[in-house]
């Protein structure tokens, strides 16, 4: 898998034989993807789950049998059956319909929150890593940023998110902001450590000597080589943010009741579990678990694709059977 010199193979140089032109590069990316799926079939499950969840979110108005927020007191807490496949909750809302609509809320919040944290954390981490150990002012800046991240991470994530929601008021936007906030340190640290190692590379020195500006060096050399790890983290993080959204809603700090959302569904259903009506909270719980699992699998597969050493193992396993 390595180049003829056998010296370096990095994420970008996962070179299958020499290739020229953009098209063959994409073709090799595609075959890489198939190779990974072949070697680790479980990853395919992740892609299936996530695709299914997203399809539900998009097609919910057409595939859901009932309106997700219309209560029908006549059929409250009816067990799974033909008219209500997954039963109804204690106000008589159809659970299947609510589960199908829920990813609209959960995924939107999770994706927005994660994207926001990545957009802040990645450039900030790159700058902090690049400036570390330069002039005094820049060093002070990076020390301040890193200590601020330490403070953020010192709080238990959940407590911190609840506090943020309490400060900003209970709305979808504050949940998004809370999720973004608790995730920023993850990207910050990840990028900083990557950038610190790439900054020492000779090609960065060469660009400096040639007169490139700091911005050009960051954009052309440091970011493209450092970003792979952060991108692999994105998917895992979305799954984790879905869980956090549900958790916040479960304790009542997130999305408010009638909006279909897995966490609040579990919360409204859990009193009924003790009296034997398990369906209002178990089904959304299963949906939530599957979604997080799916995103984690995708994150894993991206990690494998970005790491030449792991990729080689996978390739061998794939060929072996």
């Amino acid at each position, binding site marked *: 898998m390595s180049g003829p010199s056998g010296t370096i193979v990095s994420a970008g140089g996962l070179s299958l034989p020499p290739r020229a032109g953009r098209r063959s590069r994409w073709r090799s990316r595609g075959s890489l993807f198939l190779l990974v799926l072949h070697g680790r079939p479980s990853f395919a499950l992740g892609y299936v789950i996530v695709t299914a969840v997203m399809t539900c979110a998009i097609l919910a108005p057409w595939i859901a049998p009932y309106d997700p927020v219309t209560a029908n007191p006549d059929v409250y807490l009816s067990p799974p059956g033909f008219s209500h496949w997954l039963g109804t909750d204690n106000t008589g809302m159809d659970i299947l319909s609510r589960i199908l609509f829920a990813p609209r809320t959960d995924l939107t919040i999770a994706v927005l929150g994660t994207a926001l944290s990545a957009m802040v954390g990645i450039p900030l981490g790159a700058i902090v890593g690049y400036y570390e150990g330069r002039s005094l002012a820049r060093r002070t800046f990076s020390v301040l940023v890193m200590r601020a991240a330490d403070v953020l991470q010192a709080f238990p994530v959940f407590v911190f998110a609840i506090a943020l929601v309490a400060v900003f008021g209970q709305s979808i936007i504050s949940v998004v902001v809370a999720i973004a906030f608790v995730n920023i340190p993850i990207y910050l640290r990840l990028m900083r450590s990557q950038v610190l190692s790439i900054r020492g*590379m000779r090609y960065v020195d060469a660009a400096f000597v040639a007169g490139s500006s700091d911005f050009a060096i960051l954009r052309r050399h440091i970011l493209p080589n450092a970003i792979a790890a952060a991108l692999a983290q994105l998917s895992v993080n979305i799954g984790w943010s879905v869980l956090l959204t549900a958790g916040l809603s479960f304790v009542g700090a997130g999305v408010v009741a009638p909006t279909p959302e897995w966490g609040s569904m579990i919360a409204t259903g859990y009193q009924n579990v003790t009296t034997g009506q398990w369906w209002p909270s178990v089904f959304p719980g299963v949906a939530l678990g599957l979604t997080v699992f799916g995103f984690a699998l995708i994150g894993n597969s991206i990690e494998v694709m970005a790491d030449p050493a792991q990729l080689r193992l996978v390739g061998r396993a794939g060929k072996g059977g």
Partner: protein
Amino acid sequence: MSSLLEVQNLVKHFPIAGSRRKVQAINGVSFSIERGETVSLVGESGSGKTTIGRCLLGLIEPTAGGIFFKGQAMGRGVDVRAKALRGRLQMVFQEPAESLNPRMRIGEILGEPLLTLGMSRGDRDRRVAETAALIGLRPALLDVRPADLSAGLQQRVGIGRAIVTRPDLIVLDEPTSALDPTARAEIVDLLKALQADLDTAYLFISHDLSTVRFLSHRVVVLYLGSIAEEGPSDRLFAAPRHPYSAGLLASVMLPHPSLKAERRLTLEGEIPSPIDLPPGCPLATRCPFTESRCRDVSPPPSALGGGHLVHCYNHQKVAALGDVADQLTRFQELASRILA
């Protein structure tokens, strides 16, 4: 006319984290480079060769001393990115693979230094093609990425990136030491040919004395961050006058059974730690001629004529040992006779 580059009393001390002590990497080094000339810095690992090169290019800031480029003082830390200096100074690195961005195409890598000069796209493409021809790179290879090239070709690209701006001076930091002998010979030939074509000055940093002998006009021998001896290459190799250079030259191994190094002078022990150096000659702990004044005061340079300077009180004693026959020249003659 002033020298292309003049270094005066360059000092670089690295602080040690959590300690008041310092690594004294360079202790007052002065030398100059003329236009189109190759000056070599030689010495063991830890003698400060690379640090000097990096100071000249502003990659690290010197602690003290002056650097003058074409007679103009450059700030304490050289700003190679200042508009007037852009593209005038370049560098070639030891590790060819690590010096090329794995995600960029060879053509992009070669063209990158031109971006800072504000050249038009057409001019850039023309210059890149021209440079590829100069370094002997097939045009098809401009579209591949570094991992697809052999180490020798990668190093050619590294050199191409340096000459693409037609610089006045290239700092070559051990450009051949990571290569196998064939690739090394090709790179050395390429460097010679390029200098003949472009009239670029080289600061060649190496511990490979046979390459140094072949490439350089003048040689500066470094020991623990100080200059031991400097002079024209042929004089210094034929008649080293500093005990350290004599010892260094005697240690060269040549791939020929009957050309044995003549060990008239051996240096005992290891290079000492560059942390908190005592005053006096840095070689005092290893030198066979050490006297009490060697330990107290660093010897000033003595001029031996023809630009040959030696920093030793006892250079006559070294001369009295007789000249170590210039084995490298003899080997070269032998080799060319066989290969002719």
